[in-house]
């Protein structure tokens, strides 16, 4: 089984024309065979689904159960294939070359006595795994063929040619619960009750009121007059009403001073504020 591999049989050209019959043609036969060998190799490399596929094809030439394959022999076959391809100046894809390197490594490991120091899998393990991979790929290939040979739909079995369509009726289900109904009603009711927020004006003296009051009174007050004298009747007491009237009157005096209508004076901090009409 381990006889030296010199040729790879399937790389020999397969004659696809009538064999040369005339002696005159025999002269060229060798050249033709060589040319055909090149062509066949190109065709073959193109036809392989990667190095594992090539290995599987090579393994088949051993005509043994894949599990009993000689991996050493297989590695040699592969390396010869790659050499021939190189000799024919055929560009091999990178993965074929990587496989060649790996197989060369495996071959040397298989030929050398095992190194007790070596780590990792033994050469036998690697060889066994390669054999497993080939068998598994072969099994998948056979399974694919069996699958494609089944009674397939549209080839052997047929579906209904004129299916009857299901007419779709759309029904709308309204999503509304009691809570939605109540919310809607509540929304209406609160809208009725809702008004812009407003103060009760009873205790509020506005700046507009103060402005009007000062404008009316300042004409008579040519002299410095305390601001507190401008507070309207009934607002001079204490509490909210006085604070509101004071703030409004003070703000109004600032506004009139800005307009150039009166002057403001305060002798000290917290001293009474006095105003007078601006002399014209």
């Amino acid at each position: 089984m381990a006889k030296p591999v010199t040729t790879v049989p399937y790389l020999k050209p397969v004659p696809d024309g009538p064999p040369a019959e005339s002696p005159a043609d025999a002269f060229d036969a060798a050249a033709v065979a060589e040319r055909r060998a090149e062509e066949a190799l190109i065709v073959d490399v193109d036809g392989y689904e990667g190095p594992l596929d090539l290995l599987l094809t090579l393994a088949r030439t051993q005509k043994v159960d894949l599990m009993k394959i000689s991996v050493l022999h297989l590695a040699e076959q592969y390396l010869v294939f790659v050499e021939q391809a190189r000799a024919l100046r055929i560009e091999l894809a990178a993965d074929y070359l990587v496989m060649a390197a790996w197989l060369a490594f495996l071959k040397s490991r298989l030929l050398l006595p095992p190194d007790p120091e070596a780590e990792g899998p033994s050469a036998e393990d690697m060889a066994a795994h390669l054999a497993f991979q080939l068998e598994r790929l072969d099994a998948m290939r056979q399974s694919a063929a069996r699958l494609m040979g089944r009674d397939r739909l549209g080839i052997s079995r047929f579906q209904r040619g004129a299916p009857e369509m299901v007419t779709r009726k759309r029904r709308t289900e309204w999503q509304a619960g009691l809570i939605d109904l109540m919310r809607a009603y509540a929304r209406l009711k609160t809208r009725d009750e809702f008004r812009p927020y407003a103060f009760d004006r009873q205790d509020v003296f506005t700046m507009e009121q103060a402005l009007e009051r000062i404008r009316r009174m300042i004409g008579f007050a040519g002299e410095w007059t305390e601001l507190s004298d401008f507070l309207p009747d009934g607002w001079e007491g204490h509490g909210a009403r006085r604070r509101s009237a004071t703030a409004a009157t003070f703000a109004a005096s600032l506004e009139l001073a800005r307009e150039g209508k009166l002057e403001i004076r305060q002798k000290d901090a917290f001293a009474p504020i006095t105003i007078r009409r601006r002399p014209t």
Partner: protein
Amino acid sequence: MTELTDEDPNAPPPAEAANSPDFPPPPMEQQERMVEAVLFAAVSPVSIRELGDRLPMGCDPAEAIATLRRRYEGRGVMLERIGDGYAFRTAADLSFLMQAETVEQRKMSRAAIETLAIIAYHQPVTRAEIEEIRGVAVSRGTLDQLIEMEWVRIGRRRMTPGRPATFVVTEAFLDHFGLETARDLPGLSELRAAGLLESRPPADVMGVPLVERDEDDDIGDGDPAEDLFEDE
């Protein structure tokens, strides 16, 4: 179920024999199967003549059709004659199975739910009253939709000038909302307790009394007025 001949009824006739007049035609049992398969897979009705062309030589498609037709009598599908051809069709009484209902969940528009709420709380209520409460015109479509949903129906006419129609809620409405009667609708105080009336201004916090509204509150505060249900 079927009479077996000594031949395997599933065995196809030998390809060459099929169209040779020297071979006897397949048994009727087989011819029936063939017609059954052809009609099933065909895109449109198949005529006797077409069947004759497709079946092996010597077959009698008309007879196969006749026996097949009897076989499917009373079944879920029928072998029907359509024009010159024959085809399988769903039995007429089962056509309801060919309709699939898809249920679409939809939210009601704000206008619709508000109008519905007003009708529920104030029924019987006229359109003018609904508009007065909502403060906007009620489109005819909104009321139509509620009527189509079978949640609202037209009630008695109001005995006022113009005799306007009134709207009331239906049994289906009560059903949907899980109410025994419209009187079970929660009142305003309950809505408030449930936190549904929170948008009221926080007047009490300020200690300032609210200005009285001069507008008449024609909406019953709380339970709907008793007379609103007179026609129930």
